[in-house]
């Protein structure tokens, strides 16, 4: 049974993996990236994070929709949008 109205519990949108909407995938070039964090600031989904193992960044591809704002905003052109083909 579903509830009478579309009402969700906190955090339930995590079940909706919007990464499947993506056509272009952002990929960080660690050599060009200066670690400024502009990509993290501008990501409208809040899915860009600093990598644990280096000073560069990565997206959570379960939820990244591939909008490309991070690549557009990057002052070092360190993010390439790569067509994902399956």
């Amino acid at each position, binding site marked *: 049974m*579903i*509830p*009478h*109205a*579309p*009402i*969700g*519990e*906190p955090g*339930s*949108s995590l079940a*909706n993996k919007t990464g499947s909407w993506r056509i272009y995938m952002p990929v960080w070039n660690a050599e060009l990236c200066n670690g400024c964090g502009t990509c993290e600031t501008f990501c409208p989904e809040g899915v860009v994070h600093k990598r644990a193992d280096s000073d560069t960044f990565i997206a959570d591809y379960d939820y990244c929709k591939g909008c490309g704002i991070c690549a557009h905003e990057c002052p070092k052109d360190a993010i390439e949008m790569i067509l994902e083909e399956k």
Partner: protein
Amino acid sequence: MTGKLKSGRQVVEGSYAVAHAVAMCRPDVISAYPITPQTHVVEDLSQFVADGAIDAKYINVESEFSALSALVGASAAGARTYSATTSQGLALMHEVLFNVAGMRLPVVMTIVNRSMSAPINIWNDHQDSMSERDTGWIQLYAEDAQEIVDMTVQAYLIAEDPEVSLPVMVCMDGFILSHVFEPVDLLDQKAVDEFLPPFKPVSVLDPDNPKSFGMFVDPEYYMDFRYLVEQAMDQSRSKIRDAARRFESAFGRYYGDLIDTYHIDDAEIILVAMGSLVGTLRDVVDDLRSKGVPVGLLKIRAFRPFPADEIAEAIAGAKVVCVLDKNISLGTGEGAVCTEIKASLYNSDVSVPVIGFVIGLGGRDIPVSTVQRIVSKAKDVIKHGIKVESEFVDLKHSLVSIGT
């Protein structure tokens, strides 16, 4: 104007009667944007609030879209909510109407029925609310000021029933009912309190127990939520009947449930209408009955949910049904009530000719003589069959060329 509430039997304006009935229902939040001919309803209510005559929050907004949007939040937070609008204002609410119904919020809203632009016109027909018939709102239509009062209280009982949990439009004809002064039995607060319990929402928007209302739903679940609204509409049929009977027990007045009938038992000709036009038709039926014409009247009180079974049963013995529509579904050549009655009969055992009359648009008067001409046409259909399935009544031949 004073905000002190009147009581007992009074000669009041229809708009005051509505505002008084709303006040007796103890709304927590009212939000509306003034628009002719709804203005007096919300002026009276804002005066009541300003004078402290009722304990409600009145939210002033910049548009009808905002008025209904404010009530989405208020209703989700557990408030009993009210708005009123008409015509272009209702059209501006269109998007929010779907949200209120889909989120299952029991908002009650008076629609003071008025035509749609263009050409701009402030007078009565039913085009505004009829154009919102697929939004998931229950739609009730009142015949006179007393019925709009009684229907408003019943509307909250129906809307807030947990098995319904849907918004209700209570429709009254602009000017004809909103601006006319009639004797009205104003409702007593104690009696309304006994009839209408406080609103107990199924789910509440609460910062201490956060939930998301109106969630995104993907293709896997969307249709099921739409089905639930349809199911709730269907469940509202018995609640509308119960509310009418419970109201009768409490206040002594009964108007029928989803439909009302007048002299239909042996009627060969049945006139169908909604709203204040029904009052005119009662006089025509009385007059023609006194001359031996077997004519009867079917009044639709609930257009949503559509009373298909009740209508089929009521007209089963008739020889012709005349539907008087104060709206036009452009491109079909007829009003929506006519279309829906014909559609609901198509697979039934009832086979009665149905003819449609688009009538009274933009406040054009509907005199008794016009209704008598419609009855004459009905007699022709009994004798010779249907020649014209639907027509615009009383067009000006000097302005438009008619037919081909």
